[in-house]
């Protein structure tokens, strides 16, 4: 990013909870956002910050604005007001194309389900972010090339080698698909990994296994993890647990 604006938040913005981890990688302040449409949904975030290397579990029932929060954090949605500093850059002030580039460079994203392009091969699904991000591509090249890096991650995440090259994404089980999605989110070592209920489609045993693999890889990559879930039983594994309702105020049917 050419325009990296290091703008510390005003001192009046308090940081709710102290946490382990390094310097703040994300700082959000005074954000207002409304989904347009007949039933507008508004989310307001007064203040939120996240330290480097943290593993945050964000809890909240459905409809509490989790998806909107993640959209704002990932730069897919642009706030009407406020600041979203990520890695020292206020992405709220970037234009759409710059936010897309920023997302490609710095984020790995895992959805709840249907993460993969069903017609593409497993390896192509994993390699996808590299074609949008020069720096992630460079990092993958430095570790021996995109394909071998993809194969290494997939191997670590327990995908059999036979599936990696020849496997079609549509032929995988849900658990396998989520692990491939994790490999895609991690390839090229982005700084931030966002996971939107990645385990909700898995049974309990698989949930644990998936999280074990995800945590190991996130740690190896030195990434910061934000995971959203409505399942509080996972809380023990995270360095920080937050309720979205404490961070953001959602309201329907007009601006609050």
């Amino acid at each position, binding site marked *: 990013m050419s325009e990296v604006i290091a703008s510390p938040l005003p001192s009046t913005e308090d940081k709710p909870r102290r946490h382990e981890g390094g310097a703040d990688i994300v700082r959000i302040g005074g954000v207002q956002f409304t989904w347009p*449409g007949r039933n507008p949904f508004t989310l307001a975030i007064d203040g939120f910050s996240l330290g480097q290397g943290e593993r945050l579990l964000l809890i909240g029932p459905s409809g509490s604005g989790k*998806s*909107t929060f*993640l*959209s704002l954090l*990932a730069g*897919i*949605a642009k706030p009407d007001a406020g600041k979203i500093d990520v890695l020292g850059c206020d992405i709220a002030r970037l234009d*759409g*194309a710059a936010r*897309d*580039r920023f*997302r*490609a*460079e710095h984020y790995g*994203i895992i*959805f*709840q*389900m*249907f*993460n*993969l*392009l*069903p*017609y*593409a091969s497993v390896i*192509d699904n994993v*390699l*996808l*972010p*590299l*074609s*949008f*991000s020069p720096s992630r591509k460079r990092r993958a090249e430095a570790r021996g090339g995109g394909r071998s890096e993809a194969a290494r991650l997939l191997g670590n995440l327990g995908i059999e080698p036979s599936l990696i090259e020849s496997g079609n994404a549509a032929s995988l089980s849900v658990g396998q698909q989520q692990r491939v999605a994790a490999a*895609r989110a991690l390839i090229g070592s982005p700084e931030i990994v966002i996971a*939107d209920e990645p385990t909700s489609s898995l049974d309990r045993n698989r949930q644990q296994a998936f999280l074990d693999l995800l945590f190991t890889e996130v740690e190896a990559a030195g990434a910061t993890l934000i995971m959203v879930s409505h399942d509080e039983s996972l809380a023990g594994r995270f360095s920080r647990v937050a309720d979205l309702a404490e961070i953001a105020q959602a309201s329907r049917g007009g601006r609050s």
Partner: protein
Amino acid sequence: MIIVRLALQSLANRWLTACLTILSIALSVMLLLGVEKVRTGARQSFADTISGTDLIVGARSGNLNLLLYSVFRIGNATNNITWKTYQDIQTNPDIAWIVPISLGDSHRGFRVMGTVPEYFAHYHYRRGQPLTFAAGAPFSDLFDAVIGADVATQLGYRVGNKIVVAHGAGAVSFLEHDDKPFRVSGILAKTGTPVDRTVHVSLGAIEAIHVDWQSGARDPTKAVSADDVRQMDLTPKAITAALVGLKSRLAAFRVQREINNYRQEPLSAILPGATLQELWGLVGTAETALSAVSGMVVITALLGMVTMILTTLNERRREMAILRSVGARPSTILSLLVVEAGVLTFLGVLAGTLLLYGALMGLQPYIDRTYGLHVAVDPPSADQLKILGGIVAAGFLAGLLPALRAYRLSLADGMTVRT
């Protein structure tokens, strides 16, 4: 580029609908090009039929009618011109040659034309090509016939075969001149003109077979045998029309006026080229209508493609969201869909063109035989290439419709993956 590969894989994943879309575009393009081919083929065929003849003279009638029956063997003469008038015209100092023709009989659906041996020397077609004999020679005996290439191949005739001429121009006739059979003396080489479907006999022979006929039927009381008729005076009393060559084409309008003002008999003289233009003016409306219809069919096919892409859009929102999540811009998604539409259209146009040429090559002999239409299998003209390019461009443009919708959806969906 992985994105291009993924776009193609996505298309391959929907191969059935994609193939049907390509097929419908291909068929519409085939129709459009085919109409154009037949149109230009017909014009070329007509224009190639007569060459080197400066004027055609017949009884007073519509110009088109005269041209159609005298050259194209379409329709019938309304009246004849007398032999005396013919001889009068012959004396015109501007005239280099004049060939009389006499129509009205047929042989198994092929028109029989009475004429003089000079016809074979003066009648030219396709930019001045003369008629040539594939076998045999012009008629030397009274009951000799020279047949066109199609007559020979379709009826399996060789030089020396006997044929019987029927009265009237219909395909089936119950009145036959079976008392005076003809001998095939020559077979003309293929010309791709109505000459191929004509039986040529001498003017005297036309006279001879009608000697004992009266008001359209044979009069048994006056029967004359084929041998006796040779002793009679067979100078025709009337002919149907005459083809005229001038010493200088500059005299064409003057001679035409002189003939049109001939006092003893109402006559029409036409310039074949100018009358053909009249014909094009007449059928131009129908051609325009045909082109418009085939244009509509192309538009329908493109709309079908847009519909196809639009209906797949919902199930592809997931695909869009995934691409957005890894950093694809909305404009990337827009261009993916535009390119998809363009590629489908391009493949359709390509397939349609290839199909048409395949069909042309396969059907050309049949069309030639059945309709006497020589449709040339030549590469598309510059204009046609422009039209094809225009269709591909229209395909890309049409792709904008679903693309803009996908663009809006991908902005509105944000991070949400809908199923």
